[in-house]
């Protein structure tokens, strides 16, 4: 299969890329890792008139420690780079833990975090991960830069806050809270397939061992990745014992998830999975947070 014909630009700098995006807004697609866009073009379900290839824009492919101890990840950073980065493993271990779930190694060698967020597939892991991390997405156009919290970036089915002339240039991850833990899990028919349902959590404990903050994100059970607000409410302020975690899991399944049915799974089954996965993931995150509390004790 071959794509329909298109015009191709390969800028070397971010300024050139942004100028091209401005000039061709609406007709152009930015090409990042191409792991979703190129198959869609080969099937001819996507027929952009113009492609602007970002793979030479080296300024977008960097990972660095932010001044506050968090991370600044360039939009063109490959999944594989994130997966093997010790800096990421230290500052945002949830990203490291999520990577083995993201498709397969050959796809991770090409795919980028900015591409994944911009594509906004409801079943993708990284959009849910940035939600759970409380990260922000930096969007640039020729005339300016804005920073959108992940919770305001995903607007619907494949829909984001990204305007046609903007690029995802950076993902800003806040520093980890003390006494915090994380976990991710999903159920897929085969490893690497789109998940039937998935859950990501970041849980922080206070000095007494009660939950001080909880961000639980669900994927593949809504038209976009969503934060499970009801589940978080059930946890914050409570001691995260089995009963509290079960209450959070049932809130996630009953209130926060709004799954669709397809040939792979019914909506009811997906809802059931959300409950099971939330219980599993929150339990693991709490264990890790307790471990971190032990480690950080003087």
């Amino acid at each position, binding site marked *: 299969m071959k794509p329909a014909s298109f015009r191709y630009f390969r800028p070397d700098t971010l300024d050139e890329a942004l100028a091209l995006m401005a000039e061709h807004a609406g007709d152009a*697609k930015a090409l990042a890792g191409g792991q*979703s*866009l190129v198959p*869609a073009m080969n*099937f*001819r*379900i*996507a*027929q*952009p008139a113009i492609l602007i290839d970002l793979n030479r824009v080296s300024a977008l492919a960097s990972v660095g420690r932010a001044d506050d101890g968090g991370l600044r990840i360039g939009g063109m950073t490959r999944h594989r780079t994130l997966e093997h980065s010790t800096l990421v493993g230290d500052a945002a271990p949830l990203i490291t833990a999520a990577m083995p779930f993201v498709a397969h190694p050959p796809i991770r060698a090409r795919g980028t975090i900015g591409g994944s967020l911009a*594509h*906004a*597939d*409801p*079943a993708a892991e990284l959009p849910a991960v940035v939600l759970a991390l409380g990260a922000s997405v930096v969007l640039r156009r020729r005339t300016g830069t804005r920073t959108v919290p992940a919770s305001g970036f995903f607007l*619907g*089915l*494949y*829909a984001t806050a990204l305007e046609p002339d903007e690029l995802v240039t950076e993902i800003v991850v806040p520093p980890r809270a003390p006494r915090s833990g994380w976990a991710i899990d999903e159920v897929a028919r085969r490893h690497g397939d*789109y998940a039937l349902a998935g859950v990501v959590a970041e849980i922080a404990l206070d000095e007494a061992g009660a939950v001080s903050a909880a961000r639980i994100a669900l994927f593949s059970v809504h*038209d976009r990745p969503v934060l499970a607000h009801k589940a978080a409410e059930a946890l914050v302020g409570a001691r995260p014992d089995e009963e509290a975690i079960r209450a959070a899991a049932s809130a996630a399944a009953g209130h926060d998830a709004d799954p*669709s*049915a*397809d*040939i*792979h799974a019914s909506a009811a089954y997906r809802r059931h999975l959300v409950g099971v996965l939330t219980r599993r993931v929150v339990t693991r995150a709490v264990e890790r947070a307790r471990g971190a509390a032990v480690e950080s004790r003087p």
Partner: protein
Amino acid sequence: MKVQGAFTFRGPRALVWDLLQDPAVLAKAMPGTKRLERTAPDRFEGVMKVSLGPVTAAEFALAVTLRDQLAPERFAMDIDSKGALGFTRGTARVVLEEAENGETTMRYESELQIGGKIAAVGQRILDSAARMMTQKGLDALERELDARLAGGGAG
């Protein structure tokens, strides 16, 4: 695929009925409709251009035939659309009931067959896509009704 649900309009049934029989209004209510014309008393034909995520500008020729009309209570539609990416065929039934406070409840139920490339590649998101388009359509109908009730909208 089944699409069904209920929606309450803040307006009288006769007015809601008129909205649903007006091709200009239906064109607004179906996301991506570029043209919709009445080609016979009970038939509309037009063109839809659907853009959704990676699917850019998939054009479909659309034909809707109304039948079993019982104004202002119920009608059914046969829907037939075809394009390079696939087809949609099916029937939809709409029932309008008078609710409290002069409101009107619309119940809709459709059974659609979707085939071709769009079904093969997009199966995973058809349901979400249908829900999203339905919601956009209902929002558009509601806006139009509000405009008519305010005395301004002419469709």
